[in-house]
């Protein structure tokens, strides 16, 4: 139940937090949100921590590779977009 409350409150924060973003920032903002869901890398780490079968290790490997790509690539490409944005002005 506590988890559900946290979920709903976080949804409300998410709805409110980007209410007035200008159209030029739409794509960078999408990319920034994309990096944040890379937090699933923590899930991949916890899978690896408790894996003890071959299949478990395969899943942990895939999940950590996917998630690391999401996190690292996401933040770097967002930063590149925003750097460009500043240079253009």
């Amino acid at each position: 139940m506590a988890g559900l409350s946290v979920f709903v409150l976080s949804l409300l924060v998410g709805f409110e937090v980007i209410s007035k973003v200008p159209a030029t920032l739409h794509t960078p903002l999408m990319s920034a949100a994309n990096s944040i869901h890379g937090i699933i890398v923590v899930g991949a780490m916890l899978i690896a921590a408790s894996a003890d079968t071959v299949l478990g290790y395969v899943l942990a490997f895939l999940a950590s590779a996917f998630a690391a790509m999401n996190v690292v690539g996401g933040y770097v490409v967002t930063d590149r977009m925003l750097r460009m944005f500043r240079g253009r002005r």
Partner: protein
Amino acid sequence: MIIQLVYLAAATCFVLGLHLMNSPATARRGNLVSAAGMVAGVLATAVLIAEQNLIKPTGWAVLLAGSAVGAVLGLVSARTVRMTAMPQLVSLFNAVGGGAAALVAVDEVLRGSGGAVTVVLDVLIGAVTFTGSLLAAGKLQGLVPGRPVVFAGARALNLVLALVMLLGGGYFALVRPDPLVITAVGLAALVFGVTMVLPIGGADMPVVISLLNAFTGTAVAMAGFVIANDMLVIAGALVGASGAILTKLMADAMNRSLASILVGGFGTGDGDPSVAV
């Protein structure tokens, strides 16, 4: 306890980071704040699994190898991509994020823990996002025809897929957690990701990618429930909700309604999109 506090700080960084993205002047700082939260969350988790002493040397090796492969791929592609190709790269990152979220639930099923609605939703949403985002990236990159692709029997196929996902998902969550059933649900969701994006024209892809981004956020929140981790729930819900709002803003900016985009068959000069291609 300290780990939980770091998790809370990380979640706060994500909210602040998104907030700073509202204005061009502070946007870059916002991204850095969010990245700092990410580093803190990852380090805290590393300390957590090292302290609990559960993880075997093989586990560390697998984790480090996987992360290294993913990090290098992400870093190289993000640094070398041309400016015009960035949206499809974001879509690719979104695909792997959704895939990772689905794998967390698959791992839980393999452990033989009981069925739960959150496991089903994690597999469903993660799988749809995985193939849907890959296809969206392919359309923008020109690997797949950018025009709306509509084929005969698409509607019947979607109906069958929806039934498998709904009934199979319900059965797994509420009646009996049979691994075969969730496999069928996952496969149906993978196919559905394709049939959902296929009829949508390339010009509408940015909006679709934003929608799939919100999907991944929701899948990550579900993964948070599956492994009982509040930070995942918070960050996932945050992305799910802000991604949904952003999707609507983007559709509005293009003078398109989200519903008409998802129905598809729009754009690139096809006279009658209902004709099979």
